[in-house]
């Protein structure tokens, strides 16, 4: 095996992993703050892809910019979905209330969104035909797909922005307090229910933006979520449930493992490597790579 070939596999894995990482951060944030397992996360990603598509088709907005423009509307959508549905099953911050219903709710949301999209927008796959999707940057012997490289950089920027938001702002501190100990946070005057809404809004906005970035090189169809939701969950659990840096690293690891698996195994077993790594990590570190026993973001 030539070193350049190995390097190509690593580079490809990193680029693929960057977008997985961004997708997973939103899921981790929602889980970390709200303890909600959001099965509909992939469907919000799919809606983000469609919005980016319509930005591109109707307004001629480049999808890389379009992905950023999905953030505000999806933040609002997240707030609304939280206000309308999730509040009823998350107990509005009361940790003692029963939370089983949330699984059924998010699963139901996922089914409704997929099927409503199929009905309204038709199952016809769509794609944004941007020239950089099939062009590559040549770095020495390496070929880096331009769309994926741009998407990777944007994912890094957005992830960094989330990190700054969580560690350097009052909102971030309040979010983390609500995650760490909702009861104590309440005593400190933090509106835990509002923090849940914020976490859900930000989480949905991030995954929609990840969808927008994905749309630069991946076709858009109502069922696109199923291809990614399992990977998102694996990334989040791998990194430590609810940990933002953990989810980011988890996403990158999945991209790398998917790519490097092909050096050892046939293409048909591409995802086997991911799940074997997943099991190994859980065996050695049940709390995940970055997980603490206590909940945190």
């Amino acid at each position: 095996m030539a070193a350049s070939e190995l390097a190509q596999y690593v580079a490809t894995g990193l680029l693929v992993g960057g977008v997985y990482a961004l997708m997973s951060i939103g899921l981790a944030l929602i889980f970390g703050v709200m303890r909600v397992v959001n099965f509909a996360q992939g469907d919000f990603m799919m809606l983000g892809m469609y919005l980016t598509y319509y930005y591109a088709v109707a307004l001629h907005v480049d999808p890389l910019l379009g992905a950023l423009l999905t953030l505000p509307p999806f933040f609002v959508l997240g707030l609304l979905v939280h206000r309308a549905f999730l509040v009823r099953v998350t107990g509005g911050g009361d940790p003692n209330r029963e939370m089983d219903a949330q699984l059924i709710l998010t699963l139901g949301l996922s089914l409704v969104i997929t099927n409503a999209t199929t009905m309204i927008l038709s199952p016809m796959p769509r794609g944004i035909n941007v020239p950089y999707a099939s062009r590559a940057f040549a770095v020495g012997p390496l070929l880096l797909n331009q769309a994926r490289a741009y998407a990777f950089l944007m994912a890094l920027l957005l992830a960094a922005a989330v990190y700054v938001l969580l560690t350097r702002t009052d909102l971030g501190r309040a979010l983390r307090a609500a995650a760490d100990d909702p009861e104590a946070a309440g005593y400190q005057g933090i509106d835990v229910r509002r923090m849940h809404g914020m976490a859900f809004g930000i989480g949905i906005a991030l995954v929609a933006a990840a969808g927008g970035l994905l749309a630069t090189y991946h076709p858009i169809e109502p069922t696109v979520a199923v291809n990614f939701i399992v990977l998102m969950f694996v990334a989040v659990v791998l990194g430590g449930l609810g940990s933002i840096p953990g989810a980011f690293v988890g996403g990158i690891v999945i991209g790398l493992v998917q790519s490097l698996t092909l050096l050892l195994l046939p293409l048909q077993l591409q995802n086997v490597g991911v799940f074997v790594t997943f099991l190994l990590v859980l065996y050695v570190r049940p709390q995940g790579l970055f997980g603490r026993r206590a909940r945190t973001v």
Partner: protein
Amino acid sequence: MRPVSRPVALLLAFLLIAPMAVVPTVAVAADDVKIALVVPLSGRWARQGQLKKMGAEMAIEEINSQGGIKALGGAKIVLREADAGDSVEKAVSAAQRVLTREKISAGIGSWLSSLTLGVTEVAERLQVPWLTLSYADNITERGFKYTFQTSPVSSLQAEQALDLVTEIGKKNNRPLKKAALVGDNTAATVFFFKPLREKLLAAKGIELVADEVWTPPLADATSIVQKLRATQPDIVFYGATNFPDSVQVLQKVKEFNVKTIIQGVGAWLVTPEYVKTIGKETMDGIQTVVAAHPLKGQEELVKKFKQRTGEPFMTQDPLCTYAHVWLIKEAAEQAKSADPKAIRDALAKIDLTSGPAATTLYPGRIRFDERGRRVGAIPLIVQWQDGEPFTVVPANVATRPVASYK
């Protein structure tokens, strides 16, 4: 439990009764002939199901407006569709539902060979004749009496397609020496690749230099296309039935600047969305082997289809269901009955050389052998030219000559 208050109770009662008032009484007369269409209408193959439905609806409209089934006193044909989804389990339960709810005279479906294998088992058990365009060999290798396969089977397609492309290669002074197999592991692709891998390529003296098979969805196409770049095959036999997978591979082929003939195996490679997603420059020159495609002389049919549906062109999927509905109509005429068993017997004996069904399915004659395979079915080669797929082989029915683009 708290007792329900009066307004809530009234509301519930209203919600229960209202739909009965809104839904019209079933407008189906007793002697209508019902055809089941079990195709994916949701999930990753929903688009193909939708295309098949368009073809069926067009044929039904034509038949009914021309006076229905004459032997049955002008009985009209009605379609009962069911969503096969994207798994064998869903397809089987859809078939079960639609075939047991009311009397169905014949069925059509389910596009993906893996789904068809499951659905035809249900049809066999319930004794409803089933027409399919699916390619996989084993669909008609199980001794079933009610399954009729109108397309040439995968292994035969592989053999005939290889003959056709080696011929084209020789004519263009580009003899084929090295080949690659790239595709997913759905049934039709598996049966197409198997004979190529095991004997056909070797028999033509063609070396197999890459063999890349995956389970959809494909995470990334880089490694596949890297292998193609390293081994430089003259031709790639290509079977990526899942659209996003296929787009990834084709984009990478362009990105890595791999020069080779791409020979698809199936009609999934000729849907309009390819042009919209990756552009006609990438598609032009790519060819695929299909069971049906508009032929010379079918211009009127294609024009009518385009007007009806707004689709930019017509492909195998609507064409085949269009032919299947007409074929069921002919069988019902000959059987003089809407009974599924009588229609099965008529299909088993049929020898059709004229009418819309026969002219749509090349080479223009429909009869089935004892396994239910259409005798003499030959695949066509379709090539993308200027952003549209044209039949290029066989030459006598081609709508354009073969072009060598790359």
